């Protein structure tokens, strides 16, 4: 049923209809037939693009020029559409690359292929939606306002605006809810009124005026509403696709390919402890000074001094320790021995805390999102408050205190300056990487830091012996340049598949149930 031999000709008209705008809402699944080779190549390229989006999002603030520039470079090199007008003269002159229309087709088809691969579990869906949203936000923001409006029309996106009267009444509030607004900007712009639930990012950061449960969004921020729509639709669509999955999974050509695609997303999984049981409890003190990133060193110190850590700290530090190889028994012993030095007696510890530690190791309860926190998670979610020691010191400590701390660790004044500069520019992970370089006496860390456990492993590698280090050094890309070198390796099925490259993939749209 799914691979019926029926062929569909895609007419020029349909192409125009589908690819008339450089940005898509992906409402229509692709109608054409597509070869397995193309299927695979498109999917891999889009995955590279999404990984690039993820990596750049970790290292740069999403509104900065750097972020946009780097992302633009990825678009060009991977052949995804970025230009607003189709087939303008310049592109036909550089005839070497694909045409604009081909790029849009690739954008369209590759998105739908990855839906198949990423609809399977909650985690995969969350990751995919997150990256696709970032991608969409970037592309929408890059459009000229004329094309934004055109995009809204084309996709039939209409939002309620407020009347000039209401706008006038709320003028003061509207002005003081957005940066750089004056009376005239308020008068000129349309304001949309949506339930606050539809504009959470603006609500969270207090960038919008709220009244009676509604957010009043200036036209310049309309991307928020569109994006909310995008997310709602995509997550619904993924749930629907998941239902047709058994059919896909029974296809022996597609199944290995899709599985491979979906496995490629997480990068290193630090919850799989290769070195489990290799760390003894006595080693933790010296290790915390030598090989822990600052965030963990700070938590360790606070734990030793106060014999207690609050929930956020226990999670961040506990999972990190699991990641460096502590066994459950070691962890229980470690936390218990420290806590009972403080206000908690052994009995209370067993009742109130042991459970959550076993939980971290997956021994209690069923929810298992207990992988050690990445830098992004530490930096962005659950900021420390009164009494907390968790978080990322580069992000959450006062620069003055950070400076003092670095001085006490005997870093050179020049090095401290460099770190503080990076912090000022909000490049927290780069600052941490610099700290790594300075404390390990190397010029170039040779990796792009995104995880505290990665920090630990790299440090151990350096301190543990030279051989391995040499090999690593052959991958010279530093920092963010290597986003696309993280690419998913060629699928194992490739060899086999190329021989059937002429194979027809059938109708892709048959996988996408209608609502």
């Amino acid at each position, binding site marked *: 049923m799914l691979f019926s031999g029926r062929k569909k000709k895609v007419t020029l008209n349909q192409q125009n209809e589908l690819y008339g705008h450089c940005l898509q809402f992906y409402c229509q699944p692709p109608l054409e037939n597509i070869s397995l080779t193309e299927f695979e190549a498109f999917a891999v390229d889009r995955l590279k693009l999404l990984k690039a989006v993820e990596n750049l999002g970790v290292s740069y603030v999403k509104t900065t020029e750097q972020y946009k520039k780097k992302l633009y470079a990825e678009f060009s090199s991977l052949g995804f559409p970025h230009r607003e007008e189709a087939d303008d003269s310049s592109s036909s002159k550089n005839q070497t690359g694909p045409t604009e229309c081909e790029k849009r087709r690739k954008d369209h088809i590759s998105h739908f292929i990855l839906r198949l691969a990423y609809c399977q579990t909650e985690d995969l869906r969350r990751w995919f939606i997150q990256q696709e949203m970032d991608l969409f936000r970037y592309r929408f923001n890059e459009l000229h306002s004329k094309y934004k409006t055109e995009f809204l029309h084309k996709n039939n996106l209409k939002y309620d605006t407020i009347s000039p009267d209401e706008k006038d009444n709320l003028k003061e509030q509207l002005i003081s809810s957005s940066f750089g607004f004056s009376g005239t900007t308020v008068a000129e712009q349309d304001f949309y009124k949506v339930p606050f639930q539809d504009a959470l990012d603006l609500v969270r950061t207090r960038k919008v005026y709220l009244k009676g449960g509604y957010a009043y969004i200036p036209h310049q921020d309309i991307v928020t509403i569109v994006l909310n729509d995008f997310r709602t639709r995509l997550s619904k669509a993924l749930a629907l696709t998941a239902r047709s999955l058994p059919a896909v999974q029974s296809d022996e050509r597609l199944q290995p390919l899709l599985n491979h695609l979906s496995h490629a997303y997480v990068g290193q999984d630090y919850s799989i402890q290769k070195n489990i049981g290799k760390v003894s409890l006595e080693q933790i003190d010296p290790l915390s000074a030598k090989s822990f990133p600052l965030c963990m060193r700070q938590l360790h110190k606070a734990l030793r001094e106060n014999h207690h850590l609050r929930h956020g700290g226990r999670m961040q530090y506990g999972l990190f320790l699991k990641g460096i190889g502590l066994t459950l028994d070691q962890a229980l012993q470690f936390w218990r021995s420290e806590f009972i030095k403080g206000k908690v007696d052994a009995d*209370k510890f067993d009742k109130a805390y042991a459970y959550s530690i076993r939980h971290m190791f997956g021994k209690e309860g069923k929810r298992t999102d207990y992988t050690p926190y990445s830098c992004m998670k530490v930096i962005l979610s659950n900021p420390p408050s*009164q009494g907390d020691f968790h978080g990322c010191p580069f992000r959450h400590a006062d620069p003055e205190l950070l400076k003092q701390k670095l001085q006490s660790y005997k870093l050179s004044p020049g090095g401290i300056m460099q770190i503080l500069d990076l912090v000022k520019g909000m490049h927290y992970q780069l600052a941490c990487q610099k700290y790594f370089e300075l404390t390990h006496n190397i010029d170039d860390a040779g990796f792009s830091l995104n995880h505290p456990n990665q920090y630990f492993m790299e440090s151990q590698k350096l301190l543990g012996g030279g051989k391995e280090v040499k090999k690593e050094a052959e991958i010279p890309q530093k920092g963010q340049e290597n986003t696309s070198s993280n690419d998913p390796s060629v699928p194992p099925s490739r060899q086999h598949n190329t021989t059937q490259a002429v194979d027809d993939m059938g109708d892709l749209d048959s996988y996408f149930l209608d609502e």
Partner: protein
Amino acid sequence: MSTSDYDSACLPDLLPLYYRRLFPYSQYYRWLSYGGVSKNYFQNREFSFTLKDDIYVRYQSFSTQNDLEKEMQKMNPYKIDIGAVYSHRPSQHNTVKSGTFQALEKELVFDIDMTDYDDVRSCCSAADICSKCWTLMTIAIRILDRALREDFGFQHLLWVYSGRRGVHCWVCDEAARKLSVAARSAVAEYLSLVKGGEETVKKVVLSDPIHPFISQSLVVVEHYFLQYAIVGQDLLGSKASVDKVLSLLPEDILHELLNTYQTEKNPMKRWEHLRTAVHQKRTTIKKGGQYFDKEIMLQYCYPRLDVNVSKGVNHLLKSPFSVHPKTGRISVPIDLKTLDKFDPFKVPTISLICEELDKPLTAEEAEEEVKDKENETESGERRKLRDYKQTSLAKYVKLFDQFLDAMARSRKGEMLKKSDLQKEF
């Protein structure tokens, strides 16, 4: 009326009496059923009991009010927590297929605890409170209550004294109960101004333009600030405290003020000097964002939320009318109409209200009472009504009743609207 007569050793004796004759079951059941509009709303709600010796029993659930009563009278919990409404009965959570047992809805809740203010109050620390620092809770309630109503459009807010050193807020509107985790955390973050942990000195930083929510909050803070902070906490009196405040200012203002303060000892005048210095600087510097005085006020007075409590749908929070085992005080609703007069030390303890009952039941009577229950609930019910009415718990139960009535009224309004809509078709 003194509370010194509460002795936690008596709790095991008092609890049975409280749960048998005083706990407002019918209101409680009425609250958590929410008019019975959605099916199994009460039945799928998680309760958790803390028993003697900190034994913690999660995932309790009850099918009827009677069920709940019986269980509470049997277990006599030291503390009761309320969790989420789940997809299945929490008591059967082990029997459903893994992954399908999910927290679906819960009130949007806020937890404000005085221990989070330790770096900014000089009168007490940790679990201690006094009438001076209680003003911080008053400020917190005023600010959050306004924002939740006016900014977010919620109407049914139940403010409850935690029984010891803080307050809780239960936002009970249907829209609030249905909020996603992401939405809850966005609301909590919108409402959070004091940022940073032990490694941060300056915890409030304002930037231009000042959002209407912040201006509104500042109005509240300014109303209390002089009396509370300058007089009550003597913020600009002692050297240590002055240094702490001044560390939040830029160097030049700091030095200027240190000079002035050598001769000026009057705290009120000192504060005026501080404000003037900041304002002067604001006019000389073109670049906006010179709000040091406001930032100080907020750092010292703005509500400090435990964001994690508000974020989670499945987070547990101490139930209204639960007893605080350490103080013996009942978690009672707070009347916002008389908020400034609310005195946590006047909240009745379990020993007080038990005394207020005519006389404690004898063992025989207790047994009879149980029989009474089984045979004719009617008269038992009437008995209880009479019982709590003769104690100081009465006025708080009445407050709870009013809250429930208001919710019932707006539910009715909603239903009328809906059926009107249907008629149109």
